[in-house]
């Protein structure tokens, strides 16, 4: 269906959430591009398996909670399954990229069958959260240099950590932002804060990555908060049961497997 880009997005979000452990020496005259490349490089793992709790808060403070598991293998395979709420339990989405072609399937347990679905806009909201698919792509995507112009504009402290401050301007017209500001921790190249500016150059959203922990030699934030300051809405993602580089059978990423549970 329209704007369903879930699997790709989730592949990306896993990259965003889970970085590699930084160990590089900081060169003195780094450019914005260099730092982004570094951020990119630090985030890499063959497989990932984790649980994501999503709290979506609307402008009136009402909350909607969802719990999903995400499994990814390489850059081409991903599976999302709902755990909570109970009435959507076992609803699953599968994405497999083959020859650059992205295929997506949806399993609705109540219907008992698998449907192939199509995808559209990347500026759409990701699963009803305050993230768009592009937001998620932004940090994690490997094609930074093609999509964005980055510039190191200074150094600032965020929650006690010294950070590089980058100004990033999208080149592609399809991205609905005029600018993004990014604070990357100097020690380990972990992004701590991002600000998204809309087409009128007004601050639209603020994203914060909190509590990076070392899990299997990968730095992983426990919590990501995205706040839409214009709408007054907020999304909190909490990450648990994170596993890296475990064995995930290719069988898991097939439509047959979708219906089996």
């Amino acid at each position, binding site marked *: *269906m*329209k*704007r*369903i880009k*879930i699997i790709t997005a989730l592949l990306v979000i896993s990259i965003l959430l889970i970085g590699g452990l930084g160990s590089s020496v900081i060169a003195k005259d780094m450019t914005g591009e260099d730092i982004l490349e570094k951020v990119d490089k630090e985030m890499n793992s063959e497989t990932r398996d984790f649980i994501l709790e999503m709290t979506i808060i*609307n402008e*009136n403070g*009402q909350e*909607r909670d969802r719990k999903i598991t995400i499994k990814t293998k390489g850059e081409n395979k991903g599976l999302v399954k*709902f755990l909570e*709420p109970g*009435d*959507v339990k076992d*609803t699953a989405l599968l994405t497999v990229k083959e020859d650059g072609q992205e295929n997506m399937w*949806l399993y*609705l*347990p*109540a*219907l008992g069958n698998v*449907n*192939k*679905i*199509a995808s*559209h806009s990347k500026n*759409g*909201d990701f*699963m*009803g959260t305050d993230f768009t698919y592009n937001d998620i792509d932004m940090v994690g995507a490997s094609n930074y240099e093609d999509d964005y112009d980055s510039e190191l504009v200074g150094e600032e402290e965020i929650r006690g950590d010294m950070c590089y401050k980058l100004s990033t301007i999208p080149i592609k017209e399809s991205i609905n932002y005029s600018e993004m500001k990014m604070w990357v921790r100097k020690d380990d190249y972990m992004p701590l804060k991002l600000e998204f500016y809309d087409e009128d150059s007004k601050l639209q959203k603020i994203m914060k990555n909190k509590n990076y922990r070392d899990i299997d030699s990968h730095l992983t934030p426990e919590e990501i908060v995205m706040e839409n300051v214009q709408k007054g809405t907020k999304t909190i993602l909490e990450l648990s049961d994170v596993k890296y580089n475990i064995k995930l059978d290719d069988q898991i990423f097939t439509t047959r497997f979708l219906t089996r549970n």
Partner: protein
Amino acid sequence: MNKLAKFIKNHSTFIIVMVAIITVIMGYYALQIEIEAGIKDMLPEDNKVVEQFEEVQDTFGGMDFAAIILEDEEVIDLPTLKKIEKITNELEKTEGVSKVKSLTNIEKIEGSVSGIEVNKFIKELPRNKEESKRIKENFLNRDQYLGKIVTKDFKSTVLIAEIENEDQPEVVVNKIQQAIKKYKEPENIYITGSPVMVADATDYMKGDLKKLLPFVIGVILIILYLSFQSIRGVLLPISTVLISVVWTVGFQSLLGKPLSLVSTVLPVLLVSVGSAYAIHIVSRYYEELKLGNDIDKAVENTIKEVGIAVIMAGGTTMVGFASLFFSDLVIIQDFALGTAFGVGIALLTSILFIPAVLYKMKAPSHLKAAEERIFSTNFFKGIYKIVRYRRRAIIILVIIMIALSSWVLPKLKPNTNYISYFKKDSSTRIATEKADNTFGGTQPLNVVVHGNIKNADLLKRMRNFQDDIKNVDAVNNPLSIVTLLRQENRALTEDIKENEVIPETKNKIAQYLLLLEMSDKEMLENYLAFDYKTSMIQMTMETMSSTEQKEKVAEVRSLINKHFGDKYKVELTGIPKLGNEVTDLVVSGQIKSMISAIVFTFLITSILLKSLKRGFFCSLPIAFTVLINFGIMGWLGISLDIATVMVASIAVGIGVDYSIHIFTRYLEEKDKKDKEVNALKEAIFTVGRANLYNAAAVIAGFCIILLSSFPPLITFGGLTAITMIVSFIGALIILPSLIMTTIKIINGNLDDN
């Protein structure tokens, strides 16, 4: 009054300077006055129906939209669709427009055995007739958009531009109107919808203000010149009314009260009504000079002799206007406040500012102003003859008219429908009629259902309600989460019409909703609240009279009761509900303000004349006038609306002045003359003349409102002018006839020698 005269003389410079300074300050604020023409603006903010409307608007939005209708021989062809695509793109970029729905971006949920997608209904624009034909067949196969976006004959289509939740959607409408201008020809393009009507009304109001005010000033200038034939006789009265207009508009602006549909006539009204006080002052001033007094003495006598009379006349007029404050409609309350304040200022400047200026001026070069006019003398001779010899016929005639008017009183109907504010040939009306006839109307009427949407029972009830609504005439296009779920089911199963059914288990509903949320959150939010516990059924309603509208809304309400019963809380809201509320308040306000106007007038005249009987005599002609007003409305089929509802109170406030003048003069002369008949004759000849000028100015002022762009205001102007004539006749013929009859009964003869 002596003290007042002295005070003015000693402080004349101070008064003139103060008036000038305040006028400049008020002028500054007056220029910042805002104009508001929305239906919500008419109702009090804490009104329950308004609160409900705003709550629903906050949750779901979508109540304010502009419908742009495009007509052509064939709309499903390349040039027209290209144009629609361009308009859609441009409007989507327009600030304040949240969403545009048109032929080129509407979607369908499509599915097959292997997949499901949401696609544009028209995937590619047709390059030839064959492709056009295929698209048309698609539309005919799915009734989803037929009659909603495009007509069955494919000669007409509509673009819906939703406007963001804003205080003044009309500003956005102006941008939309500007944007679509260049797309006209060869197709016909029309634009309507509630915010469009408000925007059009606002434009007309601005036009009215620009057109009517100079016009009324011109007319009053002519009347003043004919009356006084001197420059100061013209300039002084006109300056007092202009000062009163500036102060009043400035005052309203300071209070944060915008000009409304009805207060558009406020400046016009103040100019014509307010000039009366200045006329009396200036006229007496000339009389005093003609008697041989010097300037100081003439001004002093003027203040002493007519000061009280002018204050009395102004006081009753203020009360008449102020009685409108009893209306429950905010715009009429504001109007009451504005006019009462304005009349007060006109009164104040007439007795302070004019004498202050007159003290400073040299004696006029001629006194034509105070000379007798042959025409008016003959006129009053005629009137006196009628009163003297035809009084029985007059009384019989009055009784007949009372009977005829009372007869039609029950037939009076309120009509406050917004579309009736536009002339029949106005573009607004034409576009709205097109939208009614081809696309089922543009007035949003919404049903808000409280209950967990994952409950299949609730979905079934909603579906049944929607099916039933299709049988209600003039209420169309029901659309809700049920519609989306049915389409989704069709897409996820076999793509046939039979599969457009609602999911029947809680889990299935939840999973369908999840999928909808992930694919198009915004679309879902139009129909379902965040907590899944409130959902909305959108419908559109055609325009019709308030009475019919009330019946229709009641019919919808009874269907709600039938399908949802007591099991779920269901609310009905939308523009028609607001309209009904305005109608109800018009009627209740009419009764309250009219009764209070008559009671207050009776009390004031009784107090001033120190007798209940005299107060009753004075109030009689005006009660008759009010009755005639309703009689005329009944016989001509004029309905009570936001403007005509004010006529009765205004008639009481202004019209009673004529009776007061005649009656007080009659009482005064009765003490001087030996015969009561002669006293009455004297009153008619002296006060009658002042009354005539006064009435002429007021009637001319109201007649100018006939040039307004708003039918209710035109009717208002006409009706008020007629009531002025009736109350003038009432004071000069009916009241004297009654007095004459009483004299005859008491004295047994009418000897006037």
